[in-house]
Structure formats: C-alpha cells, structure tokens
C-alpha cells in the first residue's frame, strides 16, 4: 500500500513538532475527514528560515507535511508559494490513489501559513499606522 520511502519519512519525520518563535502558522483540514495539518514558519527578510509541522492523519498525511516543510525551507516566500502538490508527490515517489489528497492538503497548508504571515504583517502595519496617526 505504501512505498518504503513514504514509510521511512512517516516513521522519522525530520520536521515534526511545533516551533517556538514561529511568525506564521497555517492550519488546514478537519478531523471529520481524517486529516489536520498545521505548518509553522519562521520568516526573516522574506526568506523561510525554518519550517515545522504537526499533523493528525494517516501516514501519507504525515509524510506529505514533512516533505512540504523540506521543500520550502530556505526559499523566498514567492518561491514557496510556487511549490505544488505534484512536487510533494514527486518526492514521495508514489501514493495510493485515495491518498493523493494528502499531498494537495500539504500544498494548501503551505499557502495557509504564508497567508497567515501576510495577515500578521498587515495587522502590525495597521498598528504602526495608528500609532503614527496618534
């Protein structure tokens, strides 16, 4: 059902766990459909310095999120946004057909985290603006 590669990533995910000092967090999925993915990012000067994840889900979900973190680490935000589920899938090599949605969800988790980063910037710039106006 699962390839050796998927299983080995699942068994020893390099990027598993939360992150202290993360300045962007994206969460997708719901427990009813069986997968929740949360990606934590540390972004400095537009570059993703670090990425980690927490996932509730099957092997494919856990392995996909781990690979997604690998794929965006060191990349600029713009390049990270270009990462697709196909790239996640390619690293994993193969997934059972009914598990392809896991790679799709991993792409969505990256986008959700970056979206969260932009929201935070917007909020803090509004705050700054407010303090200048005052």
């Amino acid at each position: 059902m699962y390839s050796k590669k998927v299983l080995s990533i699942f068994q020893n995910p390099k990027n598993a766990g939360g992150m202290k000092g993360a300045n962007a967090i994206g969460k997708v999925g719901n427990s009813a459909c069986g997968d929740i993915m949360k990606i934590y990012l540390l972004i400095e000067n537009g570059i993703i310095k670090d990425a980690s994840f927490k996932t509730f889900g099957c092997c494919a979900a856990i392995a996909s999120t781990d690979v997604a973190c690998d794929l965006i680490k060191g990349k600029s935000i713009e390049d990270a946004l270009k990462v697709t589920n196909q790239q996640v899938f390619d690293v994993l090599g193969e997934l059972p057909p009914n598990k392809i949605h896991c790679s799709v969800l991993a792409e969505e988790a990256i986008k959700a985290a970056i979206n969260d980063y932009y929201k935070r910037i917007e909020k803090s710039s509004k705050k700054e603006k407010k303090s200048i106006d005052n």
Partner: protein
Amino acid sequence: MAGRKVYLDNAATTYVSSEVLNEMLPCFNVLFGNPNSIHSFGREASSIVDRARDRIATAINAKDSNEIYFTSGGSEADNWAVKGLAHAYSFKGKHIITSSIEHHAVLDACSVLEKEGFDITYLPVDKYGLVNIAELLHAIRKDTILISIMSVNNEVGTIQNVKTIAKIAHENNILFHTDAVQALGAVKIDVQDMEIDALSISAHKIYGPKGCGALYLKNGLKIDNLIDGGSQERGKRGGTLNVPAIAGFGKAVEIAVRDLSVNQQKLKIIREYFLSKVRDNIDYIHINGHPQQKVQGTLSISFEMIEGESLLMLLDLDGVAVSTSSACTSNSLQPSHVLKAMGIEDEIAQGTVRFSFGKNTSKADVDYAVEVLINSVKKLRAISPITKAGRR
C-alpha cells in the same frame, strides 16, 4: 526485541491450526475425487463432505445435516441469504429490516435489493452497538419479509439479543437471518433454540482455511439460487465443492465449539491483562462496545488526538499487527459506519484501532505489544495539532 512479531488481528483471520491442517492435507492428493462423481474416488470425497456437514450441523444444533449448504465464505452466505430469501419471498412483501452496523456483505446486498425495488430499514443502535428492540418493533410492517441482524459485531464485539429478535420476527411471521461469522466459536449457537431460519458462518475466523463458509437454512424454507450451474448442494449452489477446505472447516467448527468456554476464558484473561496495562499507561482512551455483552477476543479502543491508520502503521513497523476500519484503510475516507452508528464523534472514531486476540496470544505478546503501543501513541500525540487543552 527487534524482529518480534505479534499478531493481534484474529478477527480479520486466523492461522490454520495443525489439527485442521492435518484433516485437510489428504484431500489435496490422496482423497482428491470430485464428490459428485459416482465412482469410488467420488464417493470417498463425498463421505468427507458429509462428515464435515454433520460436524457443522451438530455444532449449531441443526435438526438435519442437509440444512447446511457450503459456500465460498461468509460473504457469499450473507449475500445468498439476503438476496435469495428476499427474492423467494417477494410475493409476500418487499420490506427488509437490518441494522446500520452489519457487515458490508449484508449492507451491500441490501443496497442491491433497494435498487430492485425492495424497501430496507436500517435500524439504529445504541452507544454500545445494540439494536434497540423497541425500534425493531416499530419498524415491522405488514410487508416485512426478512429481518437480518448480525450475532456479533466484527468491529466492537457486541453480542446482539438474537434470540429475542428471532422470536419477534416469528411472532410477526417474518424470516430471521443472522450473520454469525464472528459469533462462531465465541458464543453458543443453537439454531433450534434461538429460532434461527438462516445463519452465515465462515471457516477462516476459527482456525480453518479461507475461501470456505456455509449457510444454514432451515428445512422447508425457499431460497433463490445465487450461483446456478449444477446439482451440487441439492441443486441450490452450483460449483464443485472445495473438499479440502470443507474437511478443514468441519474439523475447525468441531474444535471451536468443543473448546468454546475454555477459549473465551483464556481470551478474557488476555484481554483484561492487555486492557489494564493500556489503562495504566495511556490516557485519553475510550473502549468501544458493550461492557458486558461482548466477545472476549475483540477489543476496540479509540485513542484521542491521533488517527488510527498512522497508529496501525507505526505498530506494524514494530511487528504488531492490528486493524482499523476508520477512514484510511477503506477507500471511502469515512469513519467506520459502525462507530458512527454508535454515535461516536468523528474525531474519536478516526483514532480507533481494533485489537483481536487469538488462542495462542501470550502474556509475553501482550507485554511487547503494549510497550510498542505506548511508544507509538506518545510519538503520534507529540506531533498532533489536536491538544489536550483543545479537547472538548
């Protein structure tokens, strides 16, 4: 401990016991005749089949051995009973009552009948997986021809009140079928005392071979054929009989019924040992199924904050084999229909694993399995986005 393997999936299938295997082996190359042939080779094979039939009939207290029809397994027996009885009695009505926690062999057979114009009522169950008798009474109509309720649920091990349900069926002039695949060898089956009209059983859950089962059908009842093609099984089920498997099935049933109470007692000790170790070491768990009215071999546990399939795979990577019926093992990506019907919320249902013990499961097996389980649960909870604080 590396390389150790512990099999805790005996509700999925069991190994073939050596007594059973010995009964089967000569049928492959020595007593290999076709039981339908009239020469001596055929007669030999036929007498092997007759003996197996007698053993099964005795084990379930059938009135007559010719009430036993061999099939390719439990699923065929279920399909045959549900579709065959529905078709044979459709002149009386087209309403069937079953439960929402049946095996898919019954549920899917029912949905085929629905497409043909039959009306099916799927009875709800309570939080323990028991069919509510009041709901059953309420569901009965003038055109109800068949009630099919499983004896023991395969996912959670709950034992239904089969005798009561059968009695109600007959008081209302309705036929009663039960899928007893998980019940055989675990609870006493007496088709006469329990007033069962049709009953499905399978060999490979009781240390017999795969691909072999039987339908008990009370004499005098009509049933449409599922498989046409020959005079086998009194013209009711075509196809050359699988003599080695049938020989093994007969022996397996005999042993299972002979050792029933000893086995249940042994399984009870193992189950309680396993459960107390799990309870002592792992928080946030739920035991599914009926607290008393259950078979001892099946134990369904939901682990909060984690998903069942990833737990199954982590256990498997350390040699411990269990099963899950939640989202990921099936293609449906839906939580188990049984747990859903029992009202267990999706998130908890997703984290459910079934441990099923066998007659050779030892305390040392349990020690190892629980150790692996503790580590696996810890590992998955450490990377779960669902936190204890976030629990409802």
